[in-house]
């Protein structure tokens, strides 16, 4: 169990056996399947996985932002001493100043008709804070992301670049002084140069305010940079969870290795030799028995088709759901250098 316990003992968020299924056109689809993890104060947990693996769904399930109409969720989400999943919607609304979210496309997360200071003040207005307090907190939040209220006041979101918009979105979350922010692919729509600014900014804020972050991304290099611990998702399940070094240096799950090998890295000395592999994605509506990864897995054996692998401690301390986990360093990872 060692690595699932967060680095320091003050766990603020605990997710236990979370499952979410969506009904679509009469069919049920399990988007998240029996996921458990915890996050400590001031800690960053990275969530990685391919698109459709359930990253966004987990983030939204924690914050109770999934559509009620076609969603069923089970399991428990505990924030400090409160079980969020059983709160009434009014009580949940009162929790929202402590739990915040940042979205992938900052521009579409703003009401196009508002100006910047109203966007940043939104949470405070909803909480009913008096106007005088609002102004000073908006100013503080904007300056935390490097803006000066006087110079940006009155401008509409579309007058800002992508990176600036994402900084405004961060300011909006910070204004309510949360303790945990779910960041759903916050840099995926940004250019490298701007991405670096936003990542640095998130790191500063995390350190200064002892914020916990759940950082969702499909970019393994970005996740490595920002996360203390990393959870790897495959088809709605956590297949591996551990500290950054455990996951990146000695990944135990074959899927983690597949992901790491596919990361495009800048390496002047390496000429890539193409291999002709082609993955067949298994269907999500008709899940196969056994390990979900087995149709793509080079290590699959008979037992993988029969039993779903349980999450167990791997030799290096991380938790892994695999019958035949790896225990050697990832090839090339140790020697692979930037340039």
């Amino acid at each position, binding site marked *: 169990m060692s690595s699932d316990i967060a680095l320091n003992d003050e766990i603020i968020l605990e997710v236990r056996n979370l499952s979410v299924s969506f009904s679509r056109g009469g069919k049920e689809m399990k988007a998240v399947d029996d996921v458990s993890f915890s996050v400590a104060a001031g800690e960053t947990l990275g969530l990685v996985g*391919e*698109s459709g693996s359930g990253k966004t769904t987990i983030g939204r399930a924690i914050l109770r932002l999934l559509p009620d109409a076609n969603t069923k969720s089970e399991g428990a989400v505990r924030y400090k001493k409160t079980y969020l999943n059983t709160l009434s919607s009014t009580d949940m609304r009162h929790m929202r100043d402590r739990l915040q979210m940042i979205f992938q496309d900052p521009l579409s997360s703003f009401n196009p008709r508002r100006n910047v200071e109203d966007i940043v003040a939104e949470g405070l207005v909803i909480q009913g804070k008096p106007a005088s307090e609002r102004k000073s907190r908006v100013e503080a939040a904007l300056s935390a992301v490097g803006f000066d209220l006087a110079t940006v006041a009155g401008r509409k979101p579309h007058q800002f670049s992508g990176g600036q918009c994402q900084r405004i979105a961060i300011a909006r979350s910070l204004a309510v002084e949360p303790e945990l922010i779910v960041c759903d692919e916050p840099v995926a729509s940004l250019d*490298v140069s701007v991405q670096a600014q936003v990542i640095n900014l998130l790191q500063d804020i995390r350190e200064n305010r002892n914020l916990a972050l759940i950082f969702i991304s499909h970019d393994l290099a970005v996740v490595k*940079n920002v996360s203390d611990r990393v959870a790897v998702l495959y088809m709605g399940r956590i297949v591996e969870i551990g500290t950054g070094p455990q996951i990146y240096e000695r990944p135990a799950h074959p899927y983690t290795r597949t992901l790491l090998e596919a990361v495009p*890295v800048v390496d002047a*000395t390496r*000429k890539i030799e193409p291999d002709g592999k082609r*993955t067949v*994605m298994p269907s999500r509506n008709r899940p196969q028995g056994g390990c979900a990864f087995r149709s793509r897995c080079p290590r699959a054996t008979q037992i993988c088709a029969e039993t779903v692998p349980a999450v167990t401690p791997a030799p290096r301390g991380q938790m892994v759901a695999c019958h035949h986990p790896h225990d050697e360093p990832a090839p090339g990872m140790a020697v692979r*250098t930037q340039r």
Partner: protein
Amino acid sequence: MDATPASHPILSCKAMTCEMDSVSGPLQILQDINFSLDTRRALGIVGESGAGKSMLIKAIMGIAPRGLRTKGRIELDGQDLSALKPKQRAKLIGRKVGIVFQNPMSSLNPFVQIGRQIEEAGCIHLGMSKAEARSRAIELLSFVGLPDPEDCYNYYPHQFSGGMKQRIMIAAALICQPDLLIADEATTALDVTVQKEVLDLLQTIQAQRQMSMILVSHNLGVVAGRTDEILVLYGGNVVEYGPTSEVFRNPRHRYTEALLSAMPAMDQPAHTRLRTIPGQPPNLANRPAGCPFAPRCPSAQAKCHEVMPAMSAGVHPSHRFACHFPLAEIAHVQ
């Protein structure tokens, strides 16, 4: 095709400039682009969003938005494109160049069987018969790695995943047996694992069919290790151009170097501070007089704000860059 072992340029651009009118005055979208791509070689074009990568490709292909004024000389397989009538030019490009765009959803017609969409260009440009085109399409579908190509021929786009659709687009681009394959952000919308497969496929095809290839991406990692040369665009200018391994080993232009160090690397420990590039790309309607990167460049000096740096070569003669104060040359270890 194999009769000419010595490579010659399949595509070259000389002093190419593109301009377009907008509400805020004329936009200098591309300025003085020079490059040349030899047969059987792969070129990577990189740059941030808005740098002009797609416009460069569209201007070459003659599919730029209306109102774009292109000057300069573009040669495809030795023929000056601007000397041709639009119809002839479209025909030449259609036969010699295959292109794959970023978004397969918007490039494929949702109501037409994918097999027919693959055949289309072949029937138009090569005058293939129906049966011939069909067998070619099926052959290509299996070549790009689709299972049961004969069945797939009759399927509609929505029956495929994003990666599969991108393979289908590649098959469609190959129907005329082009000499040049262009992929504009062809893998950007895909998952890393699928992206790797599609890039591998492109590279394999290029080698097998002895084609030239242009890989356009904002991700430097995508072109690294898969291209022979690389062209770095910034604000519509070529700032660095040379052998890929040289440029990555020893970037000389300040922008290239800044871009490389802004990328989080897999060998850095967690919470490493990244180098940022403050400021924003130039406003194309109102470019600075000197180096386009000067307002953001930490090494900029007075000269940079006044004089536009020209392309000059380093020790490696084919490694060229436009910087007044380039980074130092690093000697080859060997």
